[in-house]
């Protein structure tokens, strides 16, 4: 669908779109949004809604990880359905009875780190990014000699669900990959939350470090991995995570954008 330029005059500042992903210079039908822009918005919203609402195929993810040689466990939280998950974040931080029983059945051995993967607010993010990222991350963790239990795949989880799992295994490091709240332009954004000595019900956001915005037009897997490994190394030295652990890795792309000049004042 393309708008007839006779009815919908083009905004003459169209080429400012080179500077921002924002929806500028959309034109207007009368004073209103033209059909094309309106449909594009509906499309983006539909993608974001589906990212939230379509359930993640956990079995397929388990199968794919298995194919790469990584064992995993399927767990779920006390948010037993999607509606409850959205309305009760507290339940998404607690493991269900069957999940607890499943963990009890795993023989307890020394564990350094747990890797938890949860759908969170975007199943699409995990669908797209969990497997390729784990395929980079897990060899790095193994190369460090870390003892790892199977990757825990958690349905209807919030970030803090990792705390209970880390605590169960007596793990020092807790790494949670989770689907972030989808934006219109990034329905499949994945976040990584890292917590040192996570404790269920006690660790808060202030105790975590977050690497956010991992998707095709956001942070790449390599950059995300670099940041995470930096945080792991520093946290092992300082024996903490969260607000007192600063990510000092530089982001050259961001820096160069910030230094751009502003054409309105040139």
């Amino acid at each position, binding site marked *: 669908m393309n708008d007839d330029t006779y009815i919908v005059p083009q905004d003459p500042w169209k080429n400012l779109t080179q500077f921002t992903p924002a929806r500028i210079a*959309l034109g207007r039908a009368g004073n209103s949004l033209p059909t094309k822009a309106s449909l594009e918005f509906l499309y983006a919203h539909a993608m974001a809604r589906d990212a*939230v609402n379509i359930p993640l195929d956990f079995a397929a993810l388990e199968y794919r990880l298995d194919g790469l040689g990584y064992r995993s466990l399927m767990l779920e939280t006390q948010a037993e359905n999607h509606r409850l998950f959205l309305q009760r974040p507290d339940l998404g931080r607690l493991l269900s009875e069957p999940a607890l029983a499943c963990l009890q059945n795993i023989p307890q051995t020394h564990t350094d780190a747990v890797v938890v993967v949860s759908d969170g607010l975007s199943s699409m993010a995990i669908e797209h990014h969990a497997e390729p990222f784990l395929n980079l991350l897990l060899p790095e963790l193994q190369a460090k000699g870390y003892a790892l239990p199977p990757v825990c795949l958690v349905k209807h989880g919030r970030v803090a669900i990792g705390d209970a799992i880390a605590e169960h295994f007596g793990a020092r490091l807790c790494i949670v990959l989770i689907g972030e709240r989808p934006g219109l332009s990034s329905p499949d954004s994945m976040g990584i939350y890292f917590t040192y000595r996570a404790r269920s019900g006690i660790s808060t956001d202030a105790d975590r470090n977050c690497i956010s915005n991992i998707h095709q037009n956001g942070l790449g897997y390599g950059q995300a991995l670099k940041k995470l490994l930096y945080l792991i190394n520093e946290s092992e030295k300082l024996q903490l995570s969260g607000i007192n652990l600063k990510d000092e890795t530089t982001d050259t792309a961001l820096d160069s954008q910030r230094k751009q000049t502003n054409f309105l004042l040139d």
Partner: protein
Amino acid sequence: MYKSHVSHLTHDFKTLRNLMAKASPPRSGDYLAGLGAANSLERVAAQWALADVPLKQFLNEALVPYEQDEVTRLIIDGHDSVAFQPISHLTVGDFRNWLLSGQATTATLTAIAPGLTPEMVAAVSKIMRLQDLILVAKKCRVITRFRGTIGLEGRLSTRLQPNHPTDSPAGVAASLVDGLLYGCGDAVIGINPASDNLEATLRLLHMLRGIIERYQIPTQSCVLSHVTTTLKAIEQDAPVDLVFQSIAGTQKANDSFGIDLNLLQEAQDAVLGRERGTLGNNRMYFETGQGSALSANAHEGLDQQTCEARAYAVARKYEPLLVNTVVGFIGPEYLYDGKQIIRAGLEDHFCGKLLGLPMGCDVCYTNHAEADQDDMDMLLTQIAVAGCTFIMGVPGADDVMLNYQSTSFHDALYLRQILGLKPAPEFEQWLQKHQIFDDKNQLKQQAHIPELFKPTLQKIMGEADE
């Protein structure tokens, strides 16, 4: 003990706080907190009991103890009993009737505002329908001034919100031009910085000052950093027009935001010490939203709408230019769907206006809420009919930094067209002078670049053509 007899049953409510929560129209946050009514009958029983509570009772029974909460102390110590006198004999139910009656004129509503507490206002809103909330809010008039006059009758202002994921100056400028050429930005040009640090804040402040001065725009700028960051910027003589801060209705919630009343006072004093205005000295910009106290686990057993109204007591102490309820930003665990968001937006606007605040509304939602553009059109239209002071203007309603959907420049034009609402007079004059709006405050028929922006924009276009 508060009682009511509904449907042959006696309902008891132990405290006023409990009664307020049970009388609240349903919303997910109150259930998350374990405070909402168990069923529809219990809710209506609470509403009956609440209607019989004398307004005076709110001065005797603090919902959060006076000793432990400075917001309660602010409310009680700041109460104006003379202003309260004309309505001091009323119950909550009578107060609703009074508000709807011809006795409640713009002048009387303005006069009683200092005599109202947030709890009284929250209570009456709980027994009002949407049309009641609209009708009464429409009678309120709150006018504030900095470089423009905001809140005059028949006017609707807009905050231009040119956010960019990395604060790129050219990216911000691109959205800013788009907004100005669509007639937005008289309430404030306000940027949410991607990173809340002094360096980024200073860079954006200087940039906005440069643009406002070069193009002689009768508006004010704001970088929505934490108040402590803005205070440091003021110390460095940065061009701070407005001090921004998110605020909440309990001391504990404000504590979780890293603020208290003294800090806000310090900020207001600091910014008032730097004269930058031409018309007035309303220098604060506050944002609020139902559920923020609960999300910090600092709601003190209060329902989220009463908590929100208490935030307005904090706001009014500092004579803000703008107060914005960011109603649907917080997510479905507090306001589940379009219906809950719409009601909350109208409640907040009503409560704020009745308490004498220049209330705007970020008509918005997130992608995990059960809401869509149709719901936003409902709230947008209704809140404009109610006389909302300002709304947001975000390119295409899609905030690419904060990842939520707000209202667009087109949305503001829609309201101007159907309701005949004009921007602030100073800004209106600027828009017309530069041939952006015609004399009926509509965009010029043909899209064009005004002379004012031609030199800069043509240079960019030239570069793009090469």
